[in-house]
């Protein structure tokens, strides 16, 4: 069952210097109950694409799409106002910085109770009981006492737990987590990831996790979307992406993590150069200028996505039959 289906989503920011094509026609879907990871470097369009879906873009942005189907409903032209009603009720969102996402002037309790009363029309006492219940669910000790405290009295990890609690308080169908653990220390990150995994199974919620950390993805997600220069370059199951990657960018990404075999030190393989300027996106494949296997066609024309299995797709000219000799050379 598809919970979310997106076809040909494009987002453009209009700035003084021209138009930044942040997302350049991406298509993907999210199944019910799965957790999907979006990886890519900063500026690859991974966060912008999610904000586009939620209509949380600033005024200078425009978006177009052939289809955005959420739970069967078309959302391409949903207004910001209608979207705001869905946010919190059907879709929960967690951001990177738990400090700025909580209002410092209200107690944590007020911030959890408010959406419950709005979306679920609970009475004050019922909402309070429910708030205590969900704080317990995200493993915050002595929730009755914690409800009366202000965000600054919470540590970073505790704040992120509160954010998760708020996001999940109305039992949404989809949880979008934008770099939820990037601002946290590793030991706290491990706690939060464990919590998210547990809750996903318990509540049967689909998770879209935006991250640049392949380790987090490998531990959290069953499917991966790799983004580069505003496009999806490869998507597949976690095992397909880690063990059978087909796009040179994915290869580069996987190889740039330090590997340790018998304590011997290997030189890191890095991707040379810098990501493209989306104010002037290249005519062909966005990765051409950094790709060690680039061909003439890559500069001229963007590659189409090619299906490698039911679940695995990659967009690279190397997969064209005429490039087979290069592919053999690369794969060996």
């Amino acid at each position, binding site marked *: 069952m598809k919970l979310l289906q997106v076809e040909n989503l494009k987002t453009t920011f209009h700035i003084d210097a021209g138009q930044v094509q942040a997302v350049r026609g991406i298509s993907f879907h999210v199944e019910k109950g799965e957790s999907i990871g979006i990886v890519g470097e900063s500026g690859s369009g991974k966060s912008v694409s999610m904000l586009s879906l939620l209509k949380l873009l600033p005024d200078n942005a425009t978006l177009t799409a052939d289809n955005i189907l959420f739970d069967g409903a078309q959302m391409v032209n949903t207004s910001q106002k209608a979207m705001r009603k869905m946010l919190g009720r059907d879709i929960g969102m967690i951001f990177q910085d738990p400090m700025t996402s909580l209002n410092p002037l209200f107690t944590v309790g007020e911030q959890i109770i408010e959406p419950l009363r709005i979306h679920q029309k609970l009475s004050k006492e019922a909402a309070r009981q429910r708030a205590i219940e969900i704080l317990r669910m995200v493993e915050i000790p002595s929730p009755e006492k914690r409800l009366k405290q202000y965000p600054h009295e919470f540590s970073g990890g505790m704040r992120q737990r509160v954010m998760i609690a708020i996001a999940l308080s109305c039992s949404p169908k989809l949880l979008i987590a934008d770099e939820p653990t990037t601002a946290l220390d590793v030991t706290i990150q491990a706690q939060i990831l464990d919590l998210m995994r547990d809750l996903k199974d318990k509540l049967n919620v689909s998770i879209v996790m935006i991250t640049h950390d392949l380790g987090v993805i490998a531990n959290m997600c069953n499917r991966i979307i790799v983004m580069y220069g505003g496009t999806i370059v490869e998507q597949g199951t976690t095992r397909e992406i880690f063990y059978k990657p087909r796009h040179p960018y994915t290869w580069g990404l996987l190889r740039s993590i330090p590997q340790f075999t018998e304590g011997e030190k290997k030189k890191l393989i890095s991707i040379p150069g810098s990501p493209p*300027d989306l104010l002037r996106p290249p005519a062909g494949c966005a990765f051409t200028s950094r790709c060690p296997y680039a061909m003439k066609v890559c500069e001229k024309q963007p590659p189409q*996505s090619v299906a490698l299995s039911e679940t695995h797709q990659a967009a690279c000219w190397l997969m064209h039959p005429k490039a087979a000799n290069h592919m053999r050379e690369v794969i060996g």
Partner: protein
Amino acid sequence: MTNMNYAWKGSEGANLRGDREQEWADIPDEDFARLDAGTMQSETISRPSKSYWQDAWSRFRKDPLAMIGLCTIVVIAVAAIVGPLFSAYTYDGQDIANQNQGPSAEHWFGTDKFGRDIFVRALYGAQISLTIGVAAAAINLVIGVIYGGISGYLGGKVDMVMMRIVDIMIGVPELLYIILLMMFLGNTIESILIAMSLTYWIGTARMVRSQVITLKHQEFVLAARATGSSNMRILFKHLIPNSMGPIIVTVTFLVPSAIFTEAFLSFLGIGIQVPMASWGTLVNDAIPTLFTQPYQMLFPALAISITMFALNFIGDGLRDALDPRLKK
């Protein structure tokens, strides 16, 4: 990455549509030649290089009000400098035969009770008013930047003492100093400038101080310290250039308020003395004839208002151009 078990599928592929398949097949073979790594320009920056000031200017240029303001000030300044040279009249030349004449072809703004040409006097007044405005702003810029910069950068006890001095100075009404000083020093342009320099820099100093305090913990300042840059070098090479945007905005707003203060003092009769003319003295001179010859007050008052508007438009434009984050 060893097995080549991918399929070349068109119709079953999720995103590869049937009509595109043909397109793919039509690509000539030579396009699949490898690119030479040397020809690829992965570190090339495609955007044209623009400094902060060039960028600010291009934003300023797009602000119509600010550009109108800028043009107005340029016109007034040029007229003030060049205008009197081409006129048959002088600011103090009296013509008893032509007292209190209304505007005409000979006397564009009419004449006053001594038969002096008001247009020339207004141009001459513009020289004095603009000089005072710019000079006061410049003096206060220097004092404010140095005082605020040192106070903010050194911090601690130095900052405490310097800011308490500022608090005390603010506590005493500004006009009180100015009037006392003018009486003490006499009514000259210099004394007006000295009087205004006493307190006008406080706003600039406070602004510079807060800028410097936010900037001094940035890593580029740490980097300069790690290299061994002296405090003065850090202050004048790194901190102040980075505060220049807000400093310029503050100073731009200082110009109209200095012009206004001068006009006000002259209006009270303790500013510029006759026969010299500033816009303030012109307005003051015109009070007795306000009901009989209203044009005598109208033109200098218009000059003051237009200049105020123009300078404030420039200030607003600069603020938006130099600090785009503030723009709504």
